[in-house]
């Protein structure tokens, strides 16, 4: 035990050093969890659907429900034009959800508690959505920053606000997920420390930890949902170009 800092759990540990042309591509504890997520999600969804039953069993039902959950989300928020982007949205949801949930296992590592990862995901969404909007609407895309019925006098004030709020999207999107995951895990660690420190009276924080853990399970699912649903909304803006 090195120390009791609640932030120690977020430490990146290099398991295998892999320098490629001066870039550090080391296999870390984070990479291990990502690979684990990849393998687990692949097995979960492939094996769950392997029987291709007309009347699904429990496992297949969960897979199908996940599919329909994301499909409904995309259909409700974007409409039929969004179907092309379904594989990406589905992968995004599964990846974030798996990272969040597996991160809650004791001694594991929460990939999504790092701003680098969440910002990268948000940036992919942001850039992708912007490219889709530009591709579909060309220069008309920039009318998105001019709210309809805007008086000319207010334009110099409101247009920059619109632009800034648009540019802030990847920041808020990534910060929300990162902050939620980090805060939850830090809190669990802090109260975990109390359990040890208080000895016999440790049962009080222990009960609290159980409650927080349940809350964190909800947060893990909720934040995956929020990230995905916001991606859908941004996609909708890009495709339909309306406020």
């Amino acid at each position, binding site marked *: 035990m090195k120390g009791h800092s609640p932030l120690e759990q977020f430490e*990146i540990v290099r398991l295998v050093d892999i320098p490629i042309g001066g870039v550090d591509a080391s296999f870390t504890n984070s990479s291990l969890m990502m690979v684990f997520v990849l393998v687990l999600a*692949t097995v979960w969804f492939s094996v769950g659907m392997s029987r291709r039953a007309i009347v699904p069993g429990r496992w297949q039902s969960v897979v199908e429900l996940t599919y329909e959950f994301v499909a409904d989300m995309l259909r409700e928020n974007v409409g039929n034009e969004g179907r092309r982007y379904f594989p*990406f949205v589905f*992968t995004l949801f599964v990846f974030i959800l798996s990272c969040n949930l597996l991160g809650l296992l004791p001694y594991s590592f929460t990939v999504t508690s790092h701003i680098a990862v969440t910002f*990268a995901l948000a940036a992919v969404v942001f850039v992708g959505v912007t490219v889709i909007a530009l591709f579909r609407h060309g220069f008309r895309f920039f009318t998105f920053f001019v709210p309809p019925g805007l008086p000319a006098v207010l334009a110099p004030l409101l247009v920059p606000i619109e632009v800034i709020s648009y540019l802030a999207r990847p920041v808020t999107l990534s910060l929300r997920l990162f902050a939620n995951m980090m805060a939850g895990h830090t809190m669990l660690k802090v109260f975990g420390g109390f359990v040890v420190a208080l000895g016999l009276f440790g049962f009080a924080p222990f009960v609290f930890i159980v409650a927080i853990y349940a809350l964190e399970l909800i947060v893990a699912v909720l934040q995956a949902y929020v990230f995905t649903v916001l991606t859908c909304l941004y996609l909708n803006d890009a495709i339909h170009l309306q406020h």
Partner: protein
Amino acid sequence: MPQLATADFAPQLIWLAITFVALYLVMWRVVLPRIVDVLEERQRRIHDDLTAAEGLGREAAKADAAYEAARADARENARRMASETRDAIKKRAADGEAELDATFARENAESDARIRAAREEAREHVRIIAIDAARAIARRLIGADVDDAAAAAAVDAASAGDR
């Protein structure tokens, strides 16, 4: 805060790219088509079954209608046959009655004729007897021999007066 250690960004981002793209390919190429297949197959089966059930329901309704029609037909047939039979019986009874009436009338007429003939015959006999008797009486009383024609005329005259 370990999250701000910029030296750790590169390995995270590289492995994020690798695993996310790999997961995307798995989902896009393997998992999602399989789920879509199963869902479509199920939808198709449900649709087919519903269509089949609808067809069967229509057939059942048709059979029911045919049965009802046959029943109504049979009932109508039975009613007609009953009425025909009743009419036939009634007609036969009427015919028999008429025949009987005719027979009675004929027999009546025949017996009337016979009675009339018998009466005529009897009257004829009585006349002859009366004539014979008149001749015999005349012979005994006055000893005159009255011939047949005279006697007959007298008898006829007397019996005409009786009437």
